[in-house]
């Protein structure tokens, strides 16, 4: 999209080496007009998805859920139950697909791994001193390695917002690069191949402006993110449609510039089927069908799943079942 981006593919990998080059590039990205972006997001939200389209959208959304629990009170029992739900979200209906992944704290990874072993459900772990990211780099990397060693195949890291907002872009960049390397596990750097793929949480609620969201998206992708994710769910403003729109435009433009496709994960605050479908419509009309797959789009959510199941049952049976017919885990 940018003049810089369309010029040459090989140039972009060099950007992270120089603070000046990185800053020039990020500040050269086209601006985002707040009113226009919000208007577009609202307009997409008026799409009416009914009958067969709704059924397809619900199943796709279930497959895209990163079923999440990130509480101080999480216990092995709690996360095992959640993992069981991830495998079979609707015990009453075997045709119901499983979710995309389970997302937990690093210390809970081993218990979830036991349950998910042999299945296609991914195991995501937050890392890098989630949610604030305010810890020395070595500790963040150790956190990451521990999660990978314990069996996580997806790492949800947080960027250093303090550094980003202070304009120290290479610091943010280098941390992402280092975390990506740590995703290879304890022997990272020797074998080289990552064992876990990396989702980079921008915490858009703290970045405040859409211009910042676009810059942070590019920064994360340049540094090697496999996914960019909106939020930790731990600050008041989590995922919104306009923020996700700006991030989708970024991954679209990044692929056009570099040929590499990056996924997007809105997280936090998406609670209803209606919300989820609005996001799918936005994916469909912004980046197209290439992203309409759990490999490229995820929902970070917990209560969303039961609403999806409820609506799914409504579509097949014609009646709403009460909330007690869906498991609380």
């Amino acid at each position, binding site marked *: *999209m940018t*003049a810089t981006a369309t010029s040459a593919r090989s140039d972009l990998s060099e950007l992270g080496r120089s603070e000046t080059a990185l800053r020039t590039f990020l500040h050269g990205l086209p601006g985002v*007009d707040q*009113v*226009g*972006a919000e208007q577009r997001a609202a307009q997409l939200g008026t799409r009416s998805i009914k*009958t067969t*389209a709704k059924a397809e959208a619900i199943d796709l959304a279930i497959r895209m859920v990163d079923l999440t629990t990130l509480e101080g009170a999480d216990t092995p029992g709690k996360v095992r139950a959640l993992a069981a739900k991830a495998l079979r979200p609707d015990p009453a209906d075997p045709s119901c697909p499983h979710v995309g992944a389970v997302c937990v704290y690093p210390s809970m990874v081993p218990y979830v791994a036991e349950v998910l072993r042999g299945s296609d459900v991914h195991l995501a772990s937050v890392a890098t001193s989630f949610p604030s990211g305010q810890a020395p780099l070595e500790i963040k990397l150790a956190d990451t390695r521990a999660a990978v060693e314990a069996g996580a195949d997806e790492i949800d890291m947080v960027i250093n917002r303090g550094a980003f907002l202070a304009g120290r872009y290479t610091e943010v960049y280098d941390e992402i690069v280092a975390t990506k390397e740590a995703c290879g596990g304890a022997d990272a750097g020797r074998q080289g191949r990552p064992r876990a793929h990396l989702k980079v949480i921008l915490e858009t609620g703290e970045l405040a402006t859409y211009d910042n969201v676009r810059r942070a998206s590019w920064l994360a992708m340049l540094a090697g993110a496999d996914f960019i994710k909106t939020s930790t769910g731990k600050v008041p403003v989590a995922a919104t449609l306009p923020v996700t729109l700006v991030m989708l435009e970024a991954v679209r433009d990044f692929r056009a510039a570099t040929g590499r496709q990056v996924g997007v994960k809105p997280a936090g605050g998406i609670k209803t089927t209606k919300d989820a479908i609005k996001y799918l419509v936005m994916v469909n009309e912004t980046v197209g069908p290439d992203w309409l797959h759990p490999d490229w789009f995820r929902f970070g959510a917990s209560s969303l799943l039961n609403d999806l199941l409820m609506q799914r049952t409504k579509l097949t049976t014609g009646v709403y079942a009460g909330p007690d017919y869906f498991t609380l885990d």
Partner: protein
Amino acid sequence: MFEYAPAPESRSVVDIKASSGLFINGEFVDPADGGSFKSINPASEEVLAEVAEGGAQDVDRAVRAARKAYEKVWGPMPGRDRAKYLFRIARIIQERSRELAVLESLDNGKPIRESRDVDLPLVAAHFFYYAGWADKLPYAGFGANPRPLGVAAQVIPWNFPLLMLAWKIAPALAAGNTVVLKPAETTPLTASLFAEICQQADLPAGVVNIVTGAGETGRALVEHADVDKVAFTGSTDVGRAIARAVAGSRKKLTLELGGKAANIVFDDAPVDQAVEGIVNGIFFNQGHVCCAGSRLLIQESVAEQVLESLKRRMAQLRLGDPLDKNTDIGAINSAAQLSRIRELTTAGAAEGAQQWSPPCELPERGFWFAPTIFTGVTQAHRIAREEIFGPVLSVLTFRTPAEAVEKANNTPYGLSAGIWTEKGSRILWMADRLRAGVVWANTFNKFDPTSPFGGYKESGYGREGGRHGLEAYLNV
């Protein structure tokens, strides 16, 4: 692939009467000579209703009813009481908005998403806004006790049937005038439904009169000797004829005519939003918009990139059944308008511009035209000079801000313009120099009842909307 299943809005919310009469002195009546014409659904060519065609005699009856209501009831009525009726009408419009939106889409061909989310909310907002002025006219800046003009003759176009009705009727009534309104011959149905709403609101008889018909009916109305005010929205040719007809009479005149607006995109524009603005500027309401951004001026250094994004976005536009809630582009309003669009696009291609449309299947019945852009257009091309009034965008390039201003102003029209840049100082510099009644910055086709709207040059004179809109209906 994520295919959206059909999501049609139900037609059953509106009861379309097989025939509709003239609304004169608070009642539906048959025309004196019994003439009628058909109003069709442009998306299917199905006949929706048989509509009364008003002749000179009917116009005379309507003007006399309006005169009587002006002298006996509406003129002497205190402003706060007039406001009561206008507020009531506004509320009924909101309550019946779904019905009105469906009928508007059926008769006009515009997508229900637009009639529901744009037209109807604005219609109600106009009535609410001017209702608020009715008892505050001494504070409008036109003297301590501004007087109404009397009987207003109002002729409106087919592109926004109800919204244009609201733009005309709400300020006229708020100021204390009575009206005779002629809707366009291809879109008379929502005006008849509005007449029912006037009855429902107990509006005194004769305050609003609606005479349906075609050009001859309109001519009889604007030429009627007992009319004090003529307000017209429509083509520049008809506007000229009206200006000639009322010249030398006491009639006060406002005209809102054609446009060929420039939508100007600078190299520092927010590209994704600019593309949305371009799409909204020209494909909103199938381009049947007098202030449409029909000339896109792109700074040459980003032209390729903007066009690439624009084409990708245009491929997402969904053309089809206007009542489907997911339709973006509805039907062209009439066979005559479709042939006008075809004539000009054929000329554009013949003159050497490159025509492009996304892959787009057009329904077999009805009047349709795929969203189209022409690149390689120069100022000399007909498609850069004449108003197409369809979903057709002419793309030109410029090198400097001064050149953008020069090209934007190089048209006989001057209704609107758009500027896309992140630089605030440039927005102000451009807006000072653009000869257009409305200049939008980093947005397009935004309307609000509080904001005056109107043209420079051959786009007409007088303002509608806002405090300024009252002036057209007051003796000042």
